[in-house]
Structure formats: C-alpha cells, structure tokens
C-alpha cells in the first residue's frame, strides 16, 4: 500500500517515526519548532515532541552545529536542520573538521552519528548567496556520507537510514520541490544509502543526475523518445558513497553517457562520474563522457541570467545529440 505525500511531509514522517522509535533522536535548527519550519518540514513536531526534542536555535550555525557534534559524540543522535545549505557554510568547520574526523582522530573511541539536512540548489531568482549546490564539496570529505534526493519515497527512506547511520550524513533536499507529491509506501520504509535508482530504462544513452535535475532529465528523455532515442535515466540519490555499479552497468548497455549536475562544473560530481566511467567502462564508450552543469559563474538575480545559468531539458537534449553524433 502507498499514498501520495509531498516531499516535506515525507521528510517529516521519517523524522517523526525515528523520534518515536529512538529517544536519543532530536531536531535542532532555526525556526524548526514554534514557526513549524521555514519551509514547514517540521510542522507539528514541537506539538508532538515538546521543546526538549524540537529545538529552536538562534542564528548561530557554527555554534549549534558544534553543539550537535558534541551531543552526537556523547550518545545522542541529532538532526541539525539548516534553513538552506548556503548557511551551512558557516558550520563547515564543525562538519568537516569535527563530525567527519571524530572516528578517525579518536581511533574509534568516539563516533558521530548526526544528520545535517536542508535544501540545496537554486530556487528561482534568489541571487548569488542563496542559490548554491554543495553536494560535491561535502562528498569530497572522507568521513561524511552525502544524500541528495527529491523523490518523497527516497527522501523518507534515506533520511531514516541516515538517522540510524553511525556516521555523519549530509542530506540535501530542494526548496522548490518541498511541495512535490508522489507515492510513498505505507509503514516502515528504508532506502539503503549508496544505491542509485533507475528511473527510466533505455538503451541508447545514459542520463545520470540527482536532486531536482531529475525532472529536466526525464523531460529530455521524453523529448528524445519522440525522435526514437531511448534514454536510461539514473537518479543517484546518494552522492557518497557513489553507486559505481549502476552507472557502469548502464553505460555498458548504452555506450553513451551525459551527466546532469546543477553544481558548478569544476571538480564537481559530474567530473567524478566522468572519471569512474572512463576508468571502468572505457572499452564500452562510443563517445566522450559529456555533462550539463550550471554555468561556471555566480548566479545573479535577473530572470534572463537565471535562464542562462540553469541546466534544462533543451541543453540535455543537445548534449545527447552530441554524444550520438547527431545534428542538433
């Protein structure tokens, strides 16, 4: 049995179920309690769990993230919400220098089971500081796991896995898609960290993507189908550890790959995938690995510049035609 849930409701269901199951889980962040969440992800949670476990913080990202890390080292399982990942940058010291390194530098004396979550990526005309995508930054750090997904069922199942994980896990959501509804199974539902999902099977080209770029990728696949090109669409869901096998198996079948990644191109998730594919599917490739990223610039406010910056279905179709050596 399943029912439709919005992304925000699926995320909430994951947190609520885990908090009912495990007393040590608590939620902390700006506006998560009395205001019911800046994007209403934590709506009603203060009512159910009270202020001991659903905690409004001042605007002090570095401080409350560090408090989360300390609490995690001392037996609790914090969920730290960032209003957006843009503001988590203030806390990268605690995430990178401490959460990620606790196990290593204490040689296993202490673990740091903590979840850092919030929306990532551009959300319209919000300008330079509010539009960034940090999956590749976080995924660069050994010690962290990184999830980035928007399908409500995945979000629920992966967030539950993240809360139960003994390692620090970053969960990247999407402001624009909190209202996006889709089927979520009833009852206990876990999705394993580190497994990609094939959203659409195909034979002629592999499209690999994650987070909200799944939508332009699927739209491009529809467009391509009209021209007789069958695209396989892979939703990574987890960025670290990266599911090499699903990507490589698909490329062995299609012999062509386009990576769609909202982040900047330099040393991004798309570059990592390009490395993996040339290393493990070199003999199967009929065209260079190609990618569609956001522009290699900051994102300004004006609508024309947002359009010029963001990957979209038209650009994906164009890239596919390139790897199929077709005229655009």
């Amino acid at each position, binding site marked *: 049995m399943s029912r439709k849930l919005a992304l925000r409701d699926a995320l909430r269901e994951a947190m609520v179920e885990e908090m009912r199951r495990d007393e040590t889980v608590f939620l902390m962040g*700006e*506006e998560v309690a*009395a*205001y019911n969440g*800046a994007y209403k992800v934590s709506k009603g949670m203060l009512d159910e769990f009270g202020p001991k476990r659903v905690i*409004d913080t*001042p*605007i*002090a*990202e*570095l*401080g409350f993230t560090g408090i989360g890390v300390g609490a995690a080292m001392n037996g609790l399982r914090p969920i730290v919400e960032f209003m957006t990942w*843009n*503001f988590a*940058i*203030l806390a990268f010291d605690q995430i990178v220098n401490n959460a990620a390194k606790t196990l290593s530098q204490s040689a296993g004396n202490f673990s740091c089971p903590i979840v850092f979550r919030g929306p990532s990526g551009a959300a*319209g*005309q*919000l*300008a*330079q*500081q*509010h539009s960034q995508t940090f999956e590749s930054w976080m995924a660069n750090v050994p010690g962290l796991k990184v999830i980035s997904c928007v399908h409500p069922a995945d979000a629920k199942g992966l967030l539950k896995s993240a809360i139960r994980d003994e390692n620090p896990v970053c969960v990247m959501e999407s402001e624009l898609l909190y209202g996006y509804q889709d089927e979520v199974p009833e009852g206990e539902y876990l999705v394993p960290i580190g497994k990609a999902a094939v959203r659409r099977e195909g034979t002629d080209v592999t499209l690999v993507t994650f987070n909200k770029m799944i939508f332009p990728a699927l739209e491009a696949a529809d467009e391509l189908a009209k021209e007789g090109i069958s695209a396989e669409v892979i939703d990574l869901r987890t960025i670290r550890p990266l599911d090499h096998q699903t990507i490589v198996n698909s490329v062995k079948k299609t012999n062509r790959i386009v990576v769609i990644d909202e982040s900047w*191109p*330099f040393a991004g998730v798309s570059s990592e995938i390009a490395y993996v594919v040339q290393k493990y599917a070199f003999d199967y490739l009929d065209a260079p690995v*190609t*990618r569609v*990223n956001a*522009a*290699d*610039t*900051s994102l*300004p*406010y*004006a*609508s*024309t*510049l947002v*359009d*010029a*910056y963001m990957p979209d279905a038209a650009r994906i179709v164009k890239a596919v035609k390139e790897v199929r050596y077709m005229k655009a």
Partner: protein
Amino acid sequence: METAKAGVKKINKSTYLEWFELMLKIRRFEERALMLYGQQKIRGFLHVYIGQEAVAAGMESALRREDAIVTGYRQHGTAIGRGADTAACMAELYGKATGIVKGKGGSMHFFSAAHRYFGGNGIVGAQIPIGTGIAFAEKYKGTDNLCVTMFGDGAARQGALHESFNMAMSWQLPVLYVCENNGYAMGTSVGRTSNIQEIYKLGLAYDMPSEPVDGMNPEAVHKAVTKAAEHIRAGKGPYFLEIRTYRYKGHSVSDPAKYRTKEEVEEYKEKDPIKVIEQTILSKKYASEADLQVIKDKIKAEMDYAVEFAEQSPLPDPSELFTDNYVEPDYPFITD
C-alpha cells in the same frame, strides 16, 4: 575635535523636513515594491524596511557622505538613505539591466561605490566582520571616516559579532556598530534567542561604549549617532548602538507573521516615525500642510518615474552571466 565636528549638521527646521522627505520616500518606494511583487514584476526575496525608516533618516543626517555603510538584506531604506537613485533601485528589483547593480543583485544586494555603500549582504551577520574590515582600511589609510556596520537582532547572535567586537576594540577601529533591533528574526522574538535581551549590553563585555536608542524617532537616532561618530573620529575606537525599531510587515513577503499580535503591530504604528514627524513639523510650524503636500507630490512623481523607468528598461543580455565574475574580460570559463 574641530575637524571631528565638521560636517555634522545642527538640527533645525530643514533637518526635520529632510527626515520627513527621506522617510516618506523610502516608505513609498517599498509600498510600490510590495504591490509590484504581488503582480510578479518583482521576484525572489523581498524584505521591506517599513517601520524602520527613522533609523536611516537619523543616521544619514549625522554622518558624512564619505563615511561607509554596510548592512544586511533589509536594505532598500539604507541605500536610498545614502542617496541611491530610486529609479535604479526599482529597476534592480525588476532585475533590469539599468538596475543599481545591473539586475544582478535584486532586493538583497544593492551596492554603490559612489555612495560609499558597501552593500546588502544576504548571509546573516556576515557584514559584521566585513564592516569592521572596511573600518580597518579607513584607519590604515589614515582618514577620519568611519564605517557604520548594521545588523539585525537575529544577526547579533552570530559568533562573528564577538570576534569582530574584540578585534575592533583591541585595534581601536573606526567602526560604528548599529544593531537594528526590530524585535524579531523571522519568527523568533529577541526574547527567545538569548538570556541577554538588551543587545547593547553585548558591547559592554568588551568595554565598548554601548547604548540603546529609540529607533522610532529620527532625532534620537541622529543625536546618538552624532555622539558616537565624534567619539570614533576622535580616535577612541568603536561604538555600539542598539537602535530599537519595529518592522510592520512580515519578515519577507512570504511570511504571514503569525508569531505576534495585531495589537503589538498597532501599538508601534501609533508611534510611526513618519506620522509623528508630520505632526511635529505642523505643530512647530516648520511647514504648512500645503508645503508638505508639495513634498508628497514630488515623491509620488519620483515613484511614478521609478516604476516607469523599471518597466521600460531592458532585461540583461544572457551574456551578462559571464561578466563581473572575474576582473579579466577574457577569463577562461568552463563551458562544457
């Protein structure tokens, strides 16, 4: 001390009229912006200053044009106070190429080097050390300019405030910290963020002269800023003013502001700085109703022009995406 006083105006009839005009201009600009947001002419975030205009007015009359200002994202009033052109500001909200930053910044990010306006910052509290650094540069260059570093009550809880206060005091930097305490950081009242609710007291831990100021009254702001600026220009180091004000609207257009009572909002509207100054001007006979009407008409015409200008201006060409990222015009961007 002679030079310290130069440039600081005495309060007289014309000061009152200037305050009235500036505050009304800011108010009308933002009322238009809210309306245009409803029509989807303006997108993204829009945080208005309505209710807080006396801070900009009282500050500007007490400062010199060479002094610098840096603030957060609730910044239309601050920029207009600096003298930024309202048509360029409106075009910016529209994301047009003629905007104050070519349509690249939008509501949160006006900047104007010509006005010594170091911008609206979207990361809460980021401008506290930045303003401290702007002041550092003034001291380094040997000027007697200061930098007004403005931030909200919510921003006052960032650790960067303490690091900045400490360095500014120990290096005696010419910085005027101004906390615009409007009672709320989004949905969180000041009372829920700390056991120290009188924010000015945060400066006292560093032996920084620190005071609360009535931010609904431009004269009170002017006097406090004048005194602080004299102290700073005399080389005595930083000063901290907690200016107590109020925002009438929600945090941004998407906030229904259910966390406070209608009575509370009404109570502040009773003390509305524009309403009060209008009454004062009339009762002190600084101007007649007809004189004030002339100012109102002038502002209305200015706003009509600003909207018309924004409407008629072109959107930036998509190639503008690649300008202003690096100083070099031929920087090798990654394009595939």
